[in-house]
Each structure stands twice: as C-alpha cells, then as structure tokens.
C-alpha cells in the first residue's frame, strides 16, 4: 500500500457519506479506483486504512488514507485546487459553509435513522424533527441557486446525497418533502443536472429496499 500511486476510494454503494467523496472527485475530474466494500466482512485494506473507525468512505491517495467524509471532501478540494473550488476562498464564507455542512452531519442522518428504526410516538417525533431540519436548511438556501450561491459547493456536496433517502423518509414518516420544503426540492433537481451528482444517484426505490433490509436486520419491520 505504501508506495502505490493513484487514488482509491473504499466505499459502499448506498452510503450518503461515500457519495460525498464520489461527487467531490467527479467535480474535480479525478481518476480513481472505486472499491465496493463488504461491510459484513470488512476487508484487510479497510481495516488497515481506517483502524480507528473501520468505516467507509476512505480515500487512499498515493498510499495514504484519509477518513471521514467531510474531511475527505476538504482534502480533495485542497489537493485538486486548480478546478471547481468547493469551499469559498473568503474565510467567513468558508466558516459558514463548514457550519452548515456540520449541521447536516449532526442532524440529517441521525434523525433519518430514527425515522426508519423507531415506531409510534418516537417515529412521529423523528418526523417532526426532520421537517424542522429540512425547513431550516431550506431557509438557509433562500433564493440562491446553491447553498454557496451561484456555484455548486461544499454544503451542496454534503447534503445532496441524502436526497436518495428522501423517498424512504417520506414513505416511512408519511409526509411530503415537497409540501414542507418546496424550494429544497427545486434545489435537488438543479443538483441532479450536474454530471457529478447524476453519476452517483441511486434509484430512491432501491434505497428504500435497502432500508427495508436494515429494518428486518434490526427487528423493526
């Protein structure tokens, strides 16, 4: 591993965190080898590359591993800085971008997990929270084309992979994202027009099937 040149991504197809890395690499036009991981039987390479968390995604660049999706995206942005900047150059705008990506990290996945894992009152509470989160994000987007303004950037990369999961959240929570956050849905469509996003989109129904499998696994369904 040590002296291998090139870029490898250890990932799992449905992971929104992995998709962040895929989108960032595509935006920068970086050639890389995609290695789908079996999370039930973790490979030696994964365990060696991410001994602390043993999770995907892991970006391996010239033999050196980088872990944690947002850290990976920032690394990609800083190394391949000559094309499609994802973070703004102004320190304050950068801080804002980091704040909102951090917000997505802290809120969306966790709440979404509760939506499919829990039932009854707890599920209802998760749904209410998800609506609040989406509306906060929608307010942050405002009437901008993307979260960063006119150009697709860091917060867009951080959040757009969760769009594959919207159908699952809506179906399980019995609500419509378009009804509660219509501008957000428009933003999703805009992002999907970008090649980097279109190439990493999975059929939401496939994701829903996967969620069904998770529910059975955790004894929820």
């Amino acid at each position, binding site marked *: 591993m040590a002296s291998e040149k090139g870029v490898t991504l250890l990932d799992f197809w449905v992971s929104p965190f992995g998709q962040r890395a895929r989108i960032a690499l595509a935006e920068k036009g970086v050639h890389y080898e995609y290695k789908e991981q079996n999370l039930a039987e973790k490979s030696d390479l994964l365990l060696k590359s991410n001994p602390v968390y043993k999770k995907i995604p892991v970006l391996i660049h010239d033999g050196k591993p980088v872990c944690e999706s947002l850290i990976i995206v920032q690394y990609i942005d*800083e190394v391949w800085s000559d094309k499609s900047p994802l973070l703004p150059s102004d320190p*304050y705008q950068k801080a804002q971008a980091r704040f909102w990506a951090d917000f997505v990290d802290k809120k969306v996945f966790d709440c979404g997990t509760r939506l499919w894992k829990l039932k009854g009152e707890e599920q209802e509470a998760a749904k209410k929270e998800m609506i609040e989160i989406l509306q906060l994000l929608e307010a942050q987007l405002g009437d901008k084309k993307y979260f960063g303004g006119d150009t697709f950037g860091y917060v867009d990369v951080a959040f757009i992979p969760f769009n594959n999961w919207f159908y699952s959240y809506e179906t399980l929570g019995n609500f419509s994202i378009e009804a509660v956050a219509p501008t957000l849905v428009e933003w999703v469509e805009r992002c999907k027009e970008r090649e980097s996003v279109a190439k990493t989109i999975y059929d939401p129904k496939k994701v829903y099937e996967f969620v069904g499998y998770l529910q059975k696994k955790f004894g929820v369904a």
Partner: protein
Amino acid sequence: MPQEREKQMEETVKLLGTKGSPLSHRAEVALRLKEVKFEFLNEDLAHKSDMLLRYNPIHKKVPVLVHGEKPIAESLIVIEYVDEAFEGYNILPRDPYERAMARFWARFIDEKVIPAFWMSCWTDGETQKGFIAQSKETLTTLQRQLEGKRFFGGDSIGLVDLAGCMIAFWFAVLQEVAGINLLNEEDYPVLCRWAEDYCRVGAVSESLLDRNLLVAHFASKKERIFATKAPVYD
C-alpha cells in the same frame, strides 16, 4: 501594511464565551496565538443574552466569535476561521494531508474521547465499567499520536492540542469530583506529560480558569450532572 490586513485590524473582535467552558477556551487560545485583540463577553448560560441568541440562533451555544458583525459558531470552525482570517501563527498545518490528519484527530477527540470520559464520570455500576473500558481505549489510541512529539501539532500547539484542551485540564478536575482515576501518569505517561506542557503554553494559561474554582463549580453541580449527564456551566 496591505489593505486587507488594515481592514481586519479595524474590525472589532468579540468572543461570546463562558469562562470554565473548554469549548470557549479553544476559541480563546486560538485568538491569543494569533495575538488578536478581542473583547471577551462572558455568557451566563442559564440566562442567555439576546446577543448570543441573535448570533447563534441554531445551536444557541458558546463560543461564538463575532468579527465585525459576522458571527462564527462551533469551536473547531472558529479555530479554522481564526487561522485563516488572521496572519501569524499557524494553528493548522499547511500540507493538505497533515491538515486532514489534524481534523481527523480533533474530531476523534470530540466524538470519542470526550463522550466516553464524560460518561465514565457520571454513571455507575456496570454502565460505568463499560464507559471506563471505552475511555481507556480512546485515550490509548490518542496517546499513540503523540509518539516522538512534544505536542500533537509538533513543536508547538495546533488544532489537535486545542481540541484536546479538555483532556489537558478539565479531565483531572472531573475525575477528582467524580471520584475516579482514569487519566493518570502511570497508565498514560505521555498524555499526562503533554497535558502539563499544554497548560504551560502562555496563550493557554492565560485562558484557563483557576483550577480550584473549576473543582468547586463541578462539585456543586455534581448531582445535577449525574442526573442529566449534560454539562452545566451556569
């Protein structure tokens, strides 16, 4: 003097923080390392100021850095902002891979080291044993990162050292109040040596609350913290 720098120096810098809060401390040290003149506005977290609620409506927490009229929240984000907006001391490394490593370990401290230690202090019985085991693992993993270095940042303190401030100063206080002995010289000689060195750095010692005050504070809140498991700084 370049125009940008002049403009920066004209804009006032306020730090909304709470003396005794490690997150607040992180932001304070970052500003001192850059020799930025700032006004510290102490927040009473039991009665949050209108300013705090206006500048951090999402999380309503400290620290919040206000540069001119621009608010920046979340301690690690504040540190990176201070590093980028002001010249001088390098808080993060300049190499992208080293930066990624620094961010990784800062996050590890926040997501794994601190929660495991915190819960070790405020639980009992089997639950506590579980958290103590977890805590030991995370401290061992973190200590390994110090191998051959004076600080996590190398010869001088950096992002990971600032992120680890709670370990360097608050952990000893917490374990004294909680009556456990997790972080000690025998088990973690390297980490304990680092803790002492960290606390001796000028910018750090200026930002630390008197230890006795901190012990008294946590001792007085002990029951409440045990019940809620939530940090109490009011």
